[in-house]
């Protein structure tokens, strides 16, 4: 299966790789939300972190780490790019189908985009929980097919 140029670009030059601290430190930080989705046995694990400017409520920075195929890496890399500068609600509005379209993911790789959307939702939900903001059911809605 040949990959499209955008997948290869994100795979070879992933944006915003990293973490805002160790797992312990992240748990303590109220300005950071973490989403950890997938499972090693399934061959995909994404960790997405958002850092929120608590004055403006906007996502100031985002970082990811990913264990998975090239499409999973590209999907999570793209998600961090898109999240920066967005409000939480705007972040929640990102749909997996937009990731599929932007990267031209092949049909067998659509689950990678679903995982990225799940990671975004999980990271925002984590931030809200830490800061006592009610998490809508809507935030947890998965784009499962």
């Amino acid at each position: 299966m040949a990959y499209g140029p955008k997948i290869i670009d994100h795979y070879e030059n992933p944006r915003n790789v990293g973490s805002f601290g160790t797992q312990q430190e992240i748990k303590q930080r109220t300005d950071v939300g973490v989403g950890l989705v997938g499972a090693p046995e399934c061959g995909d694990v994404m960790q997405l972190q958002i850092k929120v400017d608590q004055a403006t409520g906007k996502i100031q920075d985002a970082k990811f780490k990913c264990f998975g195929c090239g499409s999973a890496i590209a999907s999570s890399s793209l998600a961090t790019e898109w999240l920066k500068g967005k409000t939480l609600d705007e972040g929640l509005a990102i749909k997996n189908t937009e990731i599929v379209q932007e990267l031209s993911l092949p049909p067998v790789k659509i689950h990678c985009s679903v995982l990225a959307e799940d990671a975004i939702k999980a990271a925002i939900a984590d931030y809200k929980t830490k800061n006592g903001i009610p998490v809508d059911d809507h935030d947890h809605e998965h784009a499962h097919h």
Partner: protein
Amino acid sequence: MALTLPIYLDHAATTPCDPRVVEAMLPYFTKVYGNPGSRNHRFGWEAEDGVDRARQQVAALLGANEKEIVFTSGATESNNLAIKGAAEMYEKASAGSGQCRGHIITCKIEHKAVLDPCKRLQKEGFEVTYLDPPRDGVITRAMVEAVLRPDTILVSLMWANNEIGTVSEIREIGALCHEREIVFHTDATQWAGKMPTNVERDNIDLLSMSGHKIYGPKGVGALYVRRRKPRVRLVAQVDGGGQERGFRSGTLNVTGIVGLGKACEIAMAEMDHEGERLLRLRKRLEQGIAGGLDHVQINGHADKRLPHITNISFGFVEGESLMMACKDIAMSSGSACTSASLEPSYVLKGLGIGDDLAHSSLRFSLGRWTTEAEVDYTVSKVVESVNRLRGLSPLYDMFKEGIDLTKIEWAHH
């Protein structure tokens, strides 16, 4: 020697045709084009001569008599003919009788071309035991002996595994089958032409092999069928003109057969030297990778294995992304027949190495034209890529922070 990219390290999937094989085949396309079944003119006789010579070349490689060689379209057909043909011939009860038609023993890490015929036979009234392989992948005589039944009619076990290269106790299992008068079939697709084979010494009744795994053409293979002590009979699976002594009807693939014969002749002449060379290269590859990285594991038995195949698990790195990183190197994350699916290899799962490591494994298989420079390039590229991907891996971070990955509640999809 200058290095040419891409590098082909997927010889267990298929091999290039040796130019000497192509040369032997060429006249049979345009000059010696007769049908070997045409018994009354020169064109037929000459084609038949070519087939006869090939039959001797294949028989010599296997230590068999040329009358024991049946040409097929490849190892998949050979396996189908051997397994279904023997089961139907030696059944204990007839179809539709409601009784068990006979018991068959095979193993969970066989190729699909063995497993699927066995599954079909199960539907048709046979009972099949699928042995659980041990972690090292080597099936022993004792494992087979433990599941034998009075109504066992057939044992089918691969000589060497296509994904991990491990070699089972075929000679010992063959002896056991002969003691109990059970037909013994081995899928020798990865073994024959690479390692010394003698169907007498090794106690084999039926042996499948393929042309394209031994630098011959695709679309041709052979089945060895024992003719004496004991004479093994089969129910034909392809009916028609009665070619191949009725075992396999259909006009012979003369060009392919001539190519298979030549490939066998070359393999036999070069086997000792080539085996040593490949073993040296494989060890260089394994040692280079294991020396350059932590948390790597070579799957399967350390010594009981083919010289040219190795299967390595890279902890915390997903196999497909690693292949993408090494896009100048052709290798595989499973067998070519199954790597289109996203499921991890059933062979690695069957060995009990865990789904997580099964997703992190690659097979490297070396061949006749693999060079030391190619191996060295592969080592450095793999080491560099694994390190880069571990830098992206949340699992590697967690591991380094002392988090037990097995204790995390993963959200399974």
